[in-house]
């Protein structure tokens, strides 16, 4: 089977499906190739936080774009992906983290991110359920959370309704540059051609970028997720601990049905080749202790399930977004390091703009794949362990 379109998108997660969606709105033809089913990997197993707060300042422009899409998601998609504008709150236990909250709030204002930092009595009045070890809370009122199991598939279906060719159960084995564009071959021997290709294949992008001489040090890790039984909907919040101590960095969100989604702490093992990731029992036990500290009222509740998945991380915890350094017409968006869900639609919208119009006002330079090609790689390690929304 031979097919042709303006753009081939490789990878059907939140980035791929939203890029296809926005490309169709720009009337560009697009073929989306997904090895399994849309949104099955990192996009479907993550925490579901829709937060701008806490992102590197360079991400905020796309993150703001994304929020607009999340807020209009029901209208855009014709279905409900359960976006709840609950606000997003970071809390901390240590004085230097509280100081950072104030600094970040000041810096973020320039990027239209308005945060409110509360401490002491005012904080406990707003959030009476917080454990008494918490010393400060930074609130982003317009942020929230959504259902990661529904979102990317919904964008994929919306893209298909707009005319995108969404091809699931199709593994890409080769991408080759040829005259006029690219030739993409599937495991089944189908050939797809396009002028432009976007590789947003998450933990598997490195295999393809390596084919073009652009390997990146991508590492697969498994988020340690859990969910409680449904209980009265009282927290109405998405909250996480901001800290440099990995074990402390837990986060939760309560959905309207009452379940509380839990996550955080050190990641677990994940294998991109087998597509398997697991939650270590020890991590669950440790996580629960941290939740009792953060919100003592959770103590009587019960976890009914844990899960993990394959997320991929880059050493500086920032993604690769933008044009290939080796091949004209090739673009990348992957390595979101546990923070790709919220920003996904903003990245998709920006990439659609870039691919269609040839440029975007959004500055993507800090996300360039070139940064992994310098002679001596300095790993800009993030000082925080805030790995997830």
């Amino acid at each position, binding site marked *: 089977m031979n097919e042709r379109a303006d753009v081939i998108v490789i990878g059907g997660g939140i980035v791929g499906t939203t890029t296809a969606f926005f490309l169709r709105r720009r009337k560009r033809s697009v073929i989306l190739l997904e090895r399994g089913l849309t949104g099955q990997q990192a996009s479907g197993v993550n925490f579901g936080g829709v937060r701008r707060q806490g992102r590197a300042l360079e991400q905020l422009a796309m993150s703001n774009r994304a929020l607009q899409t999340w807020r209009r998601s029901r209208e855009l998609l014709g279905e409900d992906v359960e976006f709840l504008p609950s606000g997003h709150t970071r809390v901390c236990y240590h004085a230097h983290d509280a100081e950072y909250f104030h600094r970040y709030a000041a810096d973020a204002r320039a990027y239209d991110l308005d945060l409110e930092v509360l401490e002491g009595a005012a904080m406990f009045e707003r959030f009476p359920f917080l454990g008494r070890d918490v010393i400060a809370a930074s609130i982003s009122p317009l942020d929230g959370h959504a259902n990661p199991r529904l979102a990317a598939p919904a964008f994929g*279906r919306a893209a298909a309704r707009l005319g995108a060719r969404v091809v699931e159960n199709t593994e890409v084995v080769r991408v080759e540059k040829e005259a006029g564009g690219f030739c993409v071959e599937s495991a089944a021997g189908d050939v797809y051609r396009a002028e432009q290709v976007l590789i947003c294949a998450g933990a598997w992008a490195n295999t393809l970028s390596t084919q073009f001489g652009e390997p990146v040090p991508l590492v697969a890790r498994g988020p340690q997720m859990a969910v409680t039984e449904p209980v009265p909907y009282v927290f109405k919040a998405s909250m996480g601990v901001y800290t440099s101590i990995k074990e402390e960095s837990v986060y939760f969100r309560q959905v309207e049905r009452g379940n509380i989604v839990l996550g955080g702490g050190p990641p677990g093992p994940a294998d991109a080749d087998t597509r398997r990731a697991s939650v270590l029992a*020890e991590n*669950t036990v440790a996580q*629960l*202790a941290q939740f009792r500290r953060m919100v003592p009222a959770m103590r009587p509740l*019960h976890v*009914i*399930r*844990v899960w993990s998945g394959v997320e991929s991380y880059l050493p500086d915890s920032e993604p690769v977004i933008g044009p290939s350094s080796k091949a004209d017409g090739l673009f990348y968006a992957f390595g979101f390091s546990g923070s790709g869900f919220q920003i996904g639609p903003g990245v998709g919208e920006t990439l659609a703009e870039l691919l269609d119009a040839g440029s975007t006002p959004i500055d993507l330079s800090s996300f360039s794949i070139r940064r992994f090609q310098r002679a001596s790689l300095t790993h800009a390690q993030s000082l925080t362990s805030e790995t997830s929304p």
Partner: protein
Amino acid sequence: MAATVIVIGAGPAGVRAAQALVEAGLRPVVIDEGRRDGGQIYRRQPEGFKRTYETLYGTEAARARALHDAFDALRPKIDYVPDTLVWNIEPNALHTVSGTRHRKLAFDALIICSGATDRLMPVPGWHHAGAYSLGGAQVALKSQGCAIGSRVVMMGTGPLLYLVAAQYVKAGATVSAVLDTSTFAQRLRALPQLLAIPSALRKGVALMRVLKDARVPVHRGITPVEIRGTPEHGVQGVRVRQADGAMLQVGCDAVALGYHLRPETQLADLAGCEFRFDQALQQWLPIADVDGRSNVKGIYLAGDGARVRGADAAERAGRLAALAALKDIGMTCSEDEANKLRLQLNRFTRFASGLRTAFPWPARFAAALPDETIVCRCEAITAGDLRRVVNDMGAKEANRAKAFSRVGMGRCQGRFCAHAGAEVIAAEARVPLEAVGRLRGQAPVKPLPMALAPHKDLETSE
């Protein structure tokens, strides 16, 4: 240094496995969720209760007593850990919780004897208060001396339908009707296989006599239509279509529902065991050889938790699995005994197959369920919700359908909705049941308290 062998489950399979291990000179750990041993079928009543074994276990009184006596004799020779749930398994170690106390236990060999629960096909109204599983109705009587209601209807199919009805009658409870979806013709067809265990067949006939003498209406070949009830008061009656097409209404305040049993395979799943779709049973079962070896070295599966063949088979399978484990760790065992057990188990396998022919799982009901029928009790998800995700979202596989519809996301984690849910998906997607796949198992096996903390006396990391 002696091998550490852990047995999960102190029912017929687990007790006989532990016994074989003790006879070989080992001191196994026996972990059980319950307060007392016996599993479900031979569940022991609370201390201080006075009913005799004959009252509690009827024709199985001698077997029950033998099993309980055997366990009592074993107790000083094993590490018995009751009131304890195994909630996760990793290579060569398992995680338990007792109350809120977490412990991690290492093992060289693990024999999983996790037993079974009832297999359920939804019917409109089965979510009403007063609807119970057949096994649940039996436990209420056996373990607590209670009938689940003052006028009880038993509905479904399988030998348990008649056994529980007869037990209720003998205990003086009111059984308003026994409604069997299977026909007499199906029972006749199964006769050759059922003759594999002649005593069982005789017992079945005796049960029918008890019901006849008590004038309990028994209807066969029925199709459940509705369990009538109200949100506040629960069950008020049952409506079924009879074999001749006529509607039948039976007033009642409780319904006991069930269609045979389904193995509790979550622990086998967490232990990494591979599953295979069994065409005859139309279920996914963990792979095990004739002796109970799974595909994972050191993991053995025995009893109804691996494959439902009844308590007598479970005792033999438990012993056989222990012998296999002993052999695999280099201890000599009687191959003669193992052969004898294998032959006996073959008869039970044939009998179980006969039961399925006599009392088939009514897969065809799934496609006919009205859209408003709740399929997932925990999350109140209906057949219509499930069909919607198949049709509108292309979800033709169990985990995908779960992600979109929430079927299987509730507290029971698919125990009571997975089979019927898969049948609904298969019918709507027009694919074979096998193609729907099975729900991915995840820890914890049952709800895990957020108050979970390490056991004070023990290190949790090994």
